[in-house]
Each structure stands twice: as structure tokens, then as C-alpha cells.
């Protein structure tokens, strides 16, 4: 059974009398132990989608199924299976210490206090935060705050974890740690992890599947490898001998253009040919999908 199923979700907002399609016939299915990346330009509907799965925004039509049970109308006990980090929100109390946050959210989510504290202390230790558990969160770095937020969001051991821009504002080292944590939560703990990011390299490195949204619609949903092979041209890096000089040229060849490409290079003195697959950034940004 799929962990999470989104069935024909529609959501419109009115802004200054204008109707905005935030979600338009969105249907998706998600498995456990997999990481899904949602990308798309600003206003694509990514955050609306995440919030609809969390019950924070009610859809106009459609439903969300978590482990086979429907979330709407208002079957909110299913939210005990969801954990989320929301972009633009604080996610944790900055005036509390990490351990006070653990106690508050454990009680809020109905988790046994002792179990929650033990699990959190273990995770704090894993992320090198054990000496910070009694410091006010406001005094900690952005990376530490984000790690604490993730620890808190997993206290109740959710089956689905939604992370809206989880690496936003993190330095490269913290960002790498965060990515490691995301993979561990998915592959070791068996969670379905769904993340959004504007950093396509992070999506490419960490996700098994990619959802591309624009204007509230799903334009593509597939494994990253399939998307790359379907959309991309391979880039050939050709090393040539030109007189006494050695030159390197890069040429992008469409999938059906290989024959004519071979005819062209037959006339040249080719020393070596390397191939490189296009990155998601090349596929989505250079092709203008984001604009």
C-alpha cells in the first residue's frame, strides 16, 4: 500500500478579486523509504501542496490518503503520522531550550515523555548538540535550530515527513549534515520524505523521485534517472587534435541526433570522447521551465 496518496487535489485562492489556481488536479502517490523532491518556480503551488497534506489548508476538491485512510473531511487523527518543517515558520520556540521544546511538542503530539526525551537526547548527541540542550534556542546557530526542528518533527515517529526548504539558510557543512539526516530518516527509518527546495543540486543528490510543478499543476513526476534520460541531451566532451594543438569542445547532442553527430566527428581527428549527463539545473532552468 502507498504511504501517501493525493487524489485530484484542487485549490483556488482569491487575491484582489483575481482567482489563482494554487493546485489544479494534483494526483500523486508516494512510497515508504523513498525521498521525493518537489521543485518549481515561485508560486508553483509547492507550499500549498505541503500544507494541504498537513491539514493546514483545506482543498476545494480532492482528498489526501495516509496509509489508505482519507484525511478529508477532517480526519485529523491521521496527522499523528505526519511530521513537517514549514518554510517561513519558526517550527520551534526560540525562547525555549531544546529540551523544553521536546517536552512541549511530545505532550502536544501525545508521545510518552520519557520515550521522547530519550530519543531526542540520542539524536542531540548524534548531531553534536548534547551540550546545547539547556541553552535557549535563540542563542543557537541557524543550522542548529534547523536540526532541532527536524528532531522535534520526528518525535512522534511519523511515517511521512514533509520538509519545505530544509536547507534554507544553512552553511555548506550544516546543509550536508541535513542531507545525510534526510537520507537516514528515509532509508534507515523507512519514512516517506518529501522535500521542496530551490537548490536543484540538493534534490538531485538526495531524492529518488522528482515532482515538477508549475502554475499549480504537476508537469512531471518520475525517478530522477528517468527524467534525465527523457529530457536531457547528453553532453559530449570531445578532445581533438588540431595541427599541433589539442582542443576540447563540448557538444550537446539530442537523443535522436547521434547518427549525424558521428558523421560530423568522423571528419575530425578525435583523440577522446567523454560523456556527461545534464544536471537537473540544465534540464529545468536552461530550458526555461522555471520562467
Amino acid at each position, binding site marked *: 500500500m502507498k504511504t501517501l496518496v493525493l487524489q485530484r487535489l484542487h485549490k483556488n485562492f482569491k487575491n484582489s478579486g483575481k482567482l489563482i489556481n494554487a493546485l489544479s488536479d494534483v494526483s500523486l502517490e508516494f512510497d515508504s523509504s523513498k525521498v521525493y523532491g518537489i521543485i518549481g518556480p515561485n508560486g508553483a503551488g509547492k507550499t*500549498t501542496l505541503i500544507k494541504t497534506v498537513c*491539514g493546514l489548508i483545506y482543498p476545494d476538491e480532492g482528498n489526501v490518503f495516509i496509509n489508505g485512510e482519507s484525511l478529508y473531511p477532517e480526519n*485529523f487523527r491521521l496527522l*499523528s503520522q505526519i511530521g513537517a518543517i514549514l518554510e517561513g515558520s*519558526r517550527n520551534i520556540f526560540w525562547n525555549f531550550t531544546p529540551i523544553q521544546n521536546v517536552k512541549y511538542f511530545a*505532550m*502536544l503530539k501525545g508521545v510518552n515523555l520519557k520515550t521522547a526525551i530519550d530519543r531526542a537526547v540520542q539524536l542531540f548527541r548524534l548531531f553534536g548538540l548534547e551540550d546545547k540542550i539547556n541553552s535557549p534556542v535563540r542563542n543557537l546557530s541557524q543550522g542548529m535550530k534547523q536540526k532541532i526542528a527536524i528532531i522535534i518533527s520526528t518525535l512522534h515517529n511519523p511515517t511521512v515527513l514533509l520538509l519545505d526548504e530544509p536547507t534554507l539558510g544553512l552553511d555548506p557543512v550544516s546543509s550536508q549534515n541535513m542531507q545525510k539526516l534526510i537520507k537516514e530518516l528515509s532509508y534507515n527509518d523507512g519514512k516517506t520524505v518529501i522535500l521542496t527546495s530551490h537548490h536543484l543540486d540538493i534534490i538531485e543528490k538526495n531524492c529518488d523521485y522528482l515532482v515538477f510543478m508549475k502554475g499549480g499543476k504537476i508537469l512531471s513526476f518520475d525517478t530522477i534517472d528517468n527524467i534525465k534520460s527523457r529530457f536531457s541531451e547528453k553532453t559530449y566532451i570531445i578532445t581533438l587534435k588540431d595541427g599541433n594543438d589539442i582542443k576540447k569542445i563540448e557538444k550537446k547532442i539530442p537523443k535522436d541526433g547521434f547518427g549525424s553527430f558521428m558523421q560530423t566527428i568522423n571528419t575530425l581527428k578525435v583523440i577522446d570522447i567523454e560523456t556527461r549527463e545534464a544536471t537537473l539545473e540544465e534540464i529545468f532552468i536552461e530550458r526555461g521551465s522555471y520562467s
Partner: protein
Amino acid sequence: MMGIIMAESYREFVYFKRYIFERISSVIMLVFIFLGFIYSSATFSNGEVIIDKLTVSQKLIGFTIWFFALDAVGHLGSALREDLHIGILEQIALTPYSLIYNMLGRSVARFIITFWNGVIILIIFNLIFELNISIPLNVLPILILTYLGLYGLGLFFAGLTLIFKRLGPITTITRFLLLIFTGAIIPLNYFPEIIQQASVLLPMTEGLKIIRELILNKVDFYHILFSAPMFYLMINSMLYFLIGIFTFLYLEKRARRLGTLGSY
């Protein structure tokens, strides 16, 4: 559900500890306001200050109940606004229950804190002015019933905060209505008949009347239990509480439908 109430009580107590100076200041402020009240109703005779202990006791009880009614009516809305402002509300709303339980948890915690603040103040003034106000235990159920209605009004304003975010002076207007037209500091018989009758509709009037009877006139609780003011108090408090709950639930749903639950 009990966990949510526990969590919100815990939050209130962490805030209480964290902002202890603010809490102490508010008690000191209250002491000064009471001093002003007491001496403004005192008279001079042969160079001596004469304080009418009964009037002072009545005002002290009325003002204490009103002062903490301010918290009951306004705290939930302002706490919600603070959650919206710092951006934590959506994370709190990610529980398997409605936000109404968070509000109820906070109300319980605030009521406990408020109750002890009130007790401390009454003890201080009892000692200074030898007022001999002793509070019988049977005041507690009346106090709880009175505040049930007041927290109902608080829930109503909290629900409006979810949609309108800032309510402006509407809660302040309500607070002054409660101060002036419930008999807290001005005896109700000073007002025209129509205002006296309308005052029964406010959520504090009957409760205050009964509490004064129990504390100052030492009226038997069982006599009160089957009296008309008790009947009005029960109806009034239940109505305010239910209106508060249903308004909040409706407006929470509306905010989720509009997608504005977390926006400020």
C-alpha cells in the same frame, strides 16, 4: 487531548518562569491600583483617615475579579496573535486535534496562575488594612463557573483573531464594559433600571454578585445553589462558553479553508 492541555499548561508555566519579572511587576501594579482605590474612597475626619472596610472589601473583590477577567477575555487572542507573529502557529496546529484544545489548555493554566495571583493580593491587603476577608472554599466552583463564561468570550475573540489577525480596541471596549456595568467598582443600583437589567447579560455580573455574598455576607452555599442568580450564572456562563467554542471552531475551519491560518 489531555496531552494538548498538559502541553499548553507547560508552555504557560515556562513563560511564567521566563518572564517572572513581568509577572511580579503586574502584581505590584495591581497593588498600587488597589491602594489608589482604597484611599480614593477614604474620608477625613478630625485629621484621621477613615476607611470604610465593607466598601473597600466590596471594591477589592470586584476589582480583583475584573482584573483577572481582563486576562480571561484578552489573553487567548493576544497569545494567538503572538504565535502568528513569531510563526509557530502552523506547527502547533499540526496535531490530530483542533486548535480549540490548545486554547482550553492555555485557559486552564492561566486560570491557575491568575487564581494564585489573586490569592496573594487578597492576603497582602488583608494584612495591611485588616480587612478580614476570608475566602470560603465554596467560592471556587462559582469562580470557575464565572471564568468559564469569561474564557468563552476570550475564545470568541481568539476565533476572530484567526481571521482578522488584529482586533483593535474591541477587547479593550469589552473590558471596560465589564468594569463599569457588572458592579465591579460601581454599585449596579446607581444605574438606570434598563442598564441594571442588561448587565445580567454580561458574563461577570451574576458571578460577582454571588462571590460577594459568599465572602462578605457569609451566605450559606446551599441557599445560593438554588437561587435565581445562580441559575442566571449557569445559563450565562454555559452560553458564553458554547458560543466561544462554536465560533472558534467555525473560524478555525474558515481560516484553514482560506489558507490563512498561519498568516499574520
